[in-house]
């Protein structure tokens, strides 16, 4: 598993878990990023600028701070989703 801000351009990755508080997660959910979704990294701004991702035809700019909280898996190396989920929970409540 790796953080979204380290993924190379044009790579398609699957969201495995989202760190961070309820608000960030809710905001990402409503913009269409859920655990298990596939997204493509379209562009990475230089000097630790934001990451541009495409998900279901929508383009989102995510600040590096936010992108670092999104843990993803490269295509091919699929882990069963369930294993990572209790972890995602412990950080919260």
């Amino acid at each position, binding site marked *: 598993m790796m953080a979204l801000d380290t993924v190379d351009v044009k790579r398609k990755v699957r969201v495995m878990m989202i760190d961070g508080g309820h608000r*960030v997660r809710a905001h990402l*959910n*409503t913009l269409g990023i859920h655990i298990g979704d596939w997204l493509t990294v379209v562009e990475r701004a230089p000097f630790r600028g934001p990451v541009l991702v495409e998900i279901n035809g929508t383009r989102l700019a995510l600040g590096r701070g936010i992108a670092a909280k999104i843990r993803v898996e490269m295509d091919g190396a699929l882990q069963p989703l369930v294993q990572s989920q209790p972890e*995602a929970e412990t950080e919260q409540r």
Partner: protein
Amino acid sequence: MRFILAGQPNSGKSTIFNSIAGYRAATANFPGSSISFTFSRALILGREVEVVDLPGIYSLTSSTQDSGKAEGYLLEEPYDLIINVVDASRLGRSLELTMQLLELERPMIVALNMMDEAARGGIEVDHEELSRQIGVPVVLTVGRRGLGLKELFRRALQHAHQGEESFALTLDREVEEALEEVGAFLETTGIGNSVPRRFVAEKLLERDPHFEREIYDQHPELKKQVRGVAAVLQKAHGWSADQVISGSRHAVAHCIEEEAVTLERPQIGWREWADRVFLHPWTGGPVMVAILGLLFWVVFRVGQRLEMPLIELTDRLAAALAEKLPPETLLGTLAGGALTGIAGGVAIVLPYLLPFLIGLAILEDSGYLPRMAYILDNFMHRIGLHGKSVLPLILGYGCSVPAIMSARILPSLRDRRITAVLASFIPCSARTIVIFGLVAAYMGPWWALGIYLLNLLIVVVLGNVLARTMKGASPGLILEIPELQLPQMKTLAAKTWLTLKEFITIAWPLLVASSVVLGLLEWADAAATINAMLAPLTVVLLGLPVAVGMTLVFGILRKELTLVMLVQALGTTHLSAVMTEGQMLTFTLFVVFYVPCVATVAVMAKELGWRDTAVISAFSVLLAVVIGIAGRFGYALLS
């Protein structure tokens, strides 16, 4: 009858609203550009209907203050029908809000908007199938071109008459069981007789802060019971209850999307190519600088072209008037003052204001602003903010009032406050007129550009200081980048006219009146007294002509007044004859930074409170004096 337009940000609600109400709601291709509710009465098929344009909401979860307001409105206010505007090109995501709206159990219809954009993306939506899946009528529209809107409102009226309420779609079995359980608790306490019980139950399970406060304050015993149900849900899925519900909604929305949508190959058009250039790590920055530079250059050239002949004309008029009515008489003073005011508006303000407003409208409408937010995010982090603050700051170049109001799109209170303060320091179009009309016209465009860069530098330093002193960290950028659009003449014209109308109806009369008052004050020799009182500032500190004092007082009403008043106070439109270049520079710098105009102070007081507004205003005067003095001696040293 009252209809509510509700939908996700940038789905085109305001465009649809404007098409029936005339241009009233500000639209921009930037998510969240409507920040307040707009009401309008419209005649639809001979019936008077009140239409409400709600600010865009991603979901009915009060994660930010503003969406909480829209949510409260949808739940509590009386209305006959919800028109849910859905962006067809983002159907899956939009349906999640649609599902939440269905849970409100009110009459509702769906406007499936932006069908043209969806078609470009290779998305074909079967609206009949969609309508069957969600149980409410679906009408296809293209708001920007006005297609399908007649049919939309016809169906809306018809549906509102029938009064058929929507019903919630079924989620996961476990979620439904949990909702039922919580619903039963609510029933025993009598909650949910006036509002849909299922909706409240869902909000409590999601731990929505607004609902938790409202309900647990009255019935503290419910808290334990609801949390118990949430814990069971969490145990079964391994996720917190809000994620389980949101995940389940996502799944259902996805299923509906799959049923209703056929995907084809998206067309790769100019939009895709333009974006590759605009957002590329190497070309993005330079292209942005080029675009802004072009805007600056066009405004200067067009303004200059228009200004020269107009000033000549008004000068001849003034000379003719002075012959008929000598300025020594009272009548001559009044007429001369009025003419200066009118002439100032025509010859000095409009030539620069018009191209500037059109340029800004193009930037807003095309969707370039969110791309600027993306490119500048990194830079904004240096000031302690993030990319989303770019919108209020850019709007600040138009007018400080909407700029400060638009700071509300920022999720954190800290960012909102810092951005609002910074936006008030950005030279608005009124201050731009002083910069262009005085510095650029007499000293050349490079000096004007220098003032903008100096201003930007000071804003950056100020932002840095504020970010360091105010507690809390910026949560980071999450921003949707909407598709690029070709700006449409109709929208551009309407948008420019909206701002221009404000200048003509509010600022211009003020300009004429102030001009007359200044003339009268001079006639009665009262201006000299006020000028003498201000002399320590204007003459001693800034080295300006003594007559300038009054103009600065008027400038608090509207900043462009300072320039027009200057013409009146010095008695000539050929300012270079009575002011040195150094004086023009000092004057302009002072005007750019000192107290924002009355309207800005009022809106700042509303957003930040009177105490902070007073501090900022006092600080701005101090800053203006320091920068004015620096300009005065800096110019003397350079030349």
